[in-house]
């Protein structure tokens, strides 16, 4: 993905704001922020981020490209939409955060070890493979995403929960072999492939 980053850098020399407007989902809204800070105060994980949304927007305007794209703040978004409904300028902040994260991911600048980044990719891959989520594989995939040992530890830690769900009939061990899936898997794959192509074109990612 380094190439795409190079190409972006070349195209948007010191105008990160324009880059965001053109390439990030809902990015054109960033300029509308008036720095009131309501989003920052509304975020449930607020205390855990380095940069609040409003601050990220200011950093974008200030051209702090690397700091923004490598920040893990966006990855803290729980999609609770508190910021969106309170924003006096009606910015779709949740989507912008997702958009920035996605863009950072595409450019390969997102923080490698961020668990949510991994989980997000894992989830999408999991649900698009068959058209439906395979919860068991998802869970295991999550535990093992930091390697075998870590995985076994996590799985062990969660064994009670897993067992509980199992007993409650809310976890199906056989999903490991074959879980739910859509009939038209192939069609879904084709359609998604097309969607990626189109978006690459629209956002100007294509070389």
């Amino acid at each position, binding site marked *: 993905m380094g190439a795409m980053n190079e190409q972006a850098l070349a195209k948007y020399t010191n105008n990160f704001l324009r880059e965001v407007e053109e390439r990030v989902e809902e990015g054109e809204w960033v300029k509308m922020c008036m720095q*009131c*800070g*309501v989003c*920052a*105060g509304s975020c449930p994980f*607020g205390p855990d981020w380095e940069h609040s949304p409003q601050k990220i927007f200011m950093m974008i305007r200030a051209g702090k490209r690397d700091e923004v794209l490598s920040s893990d703040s966006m990855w803290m978004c729980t999609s609770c939409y508190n910021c969106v409904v309170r*924003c*006096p*300028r*009606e910015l779709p902040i949740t989507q912008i955060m997702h958009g920035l994260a996605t863009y950072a991911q595409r450019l390969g600048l997102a923080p490698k070890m961020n668990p949510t980044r991994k989980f997000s990719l894992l989830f999408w891959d999991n649900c698009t493979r068959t058209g439906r989520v395979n919860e068991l594989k998802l869970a295991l995939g999550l535990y093992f995403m930091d390697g075998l040992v870590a995985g076994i530890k996590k799985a062990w830690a969660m064994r009670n929960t897993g067992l509980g769900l199992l007993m409650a009939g809310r976890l199906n061990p056989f999903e490991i072999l074959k879980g739910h899936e859509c009939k038209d898997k192939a069609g879904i794959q084709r359609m998604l492939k097309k969607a990626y192509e189109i978006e690459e074109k629209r956002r100007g990612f294509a070389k």
Partner: protein
Amino acid sequence: MTEVVATSQTIVVVGGGISGMTAALEAAECGRQVLLIEKTPALGGRTALLYRYFPKLCHPTCGLEINLRRLKSSRNLRVLTMAEVTKITGARGDYSVSLKLSPRYVNENCTACGACSEAVEAAIDNPYNYGLSKMKAAYLPHAMAYPQRYVLDPSIVGTPEGEKAKAACKYGAIDLGMKQETLEIKAGAVIWATGWQPYDAAKIQPYGYDRYPNVITSLEFERLADPHGPTGGKITRPSDGREAKDIAFIQCAGSRDENHLRHCSRICCMASLKQTQYVREAYGEEGKSTVYYIDIRAIDRFEDFYRKVLADKTVRFVKSKPARIAEDRKTLDPVIHGVDTEGYHRYASRHDLVVLAVGMEPAVKGADIPHEIVADSSGFIESAASGGFFGAGCASNALDVNRSVQSATASALRAIQVVRKSDRVEA
């Protein structure tokens, strides 16, 4: 039956607040015939319910006294209270204005001796204190009410309470048989000065005005500080009557907000700066004010006042639009959650009382004005095609008192231009 003499030379002014009174007086003092229409039982409007003005911290009632004296000594000015305009037809120089007159149940015999009020026991919410207190159902609106004449609340008419009032009056001033009247009058020009109303704070859900007793509006706070108010000027908490010494002022409560009012209401910053000084007046160094703001809009020499407040150790400024207010279940203290964006500092601040600097919207929104006009998206009057209808004061824009009076004076001239007898050199 009410008699009113009005001709195409008459200027009708709608609204008896400071803008309407000013427009009416200035026109009358230019020798024009003016009819001033007020919906409530007394003149004075919104400013009569303020404790002090910024930036001088002088008292609105002082100017009201002067205007009332001007009004009493003017022969060109007629006042109709408890009158509402229901329809305005016609055009420049030739309007006909339909009025609805509500019964006062008290006639001009009233000497304001107060006997009826003493006799009556029934109490109603006192609108002049935004319902923060009760008043007798036979009442004089406020100490400076003009006309200085009592009013009977309709709720006691036809009840023994009403009869008590009647029996108590030695001067035959109480007429329980009064009926609503309608009236049609001529006018050459109309000045619409119906003023503003506070934005409904309950709609700002994150601040919990509808849920937390110790979250109030800036207008209610004016009443708390006012010696004429429900607490006799003591700044206390609605929940427990305890002295409120640590007070938060939240700016842009409804203003500058796509979810509420899109415009900036102009006055709120200065109003809050002023109110921090009420806290100081009441509690000295013990008082504590915190102003949560986006931009402090203290333009022109108001900046001097802002500077003065900045220098006040009891006042703190936080550049932040608070995200939400929570309530401490035990103490009922409001706790404000948000982030100070100057450098990103997260806070959860507990206060005795939170005052929402609520925004300003037209008391009668453009679409509800019974005449064809052009209003902006907030409902403020921009213009009217009929050519002789003019908005004045806060009906025309979010204005402070000084600018409202300027606007009213200007609209008085525009009205005069319409009705002036053509005895002067023509333009």
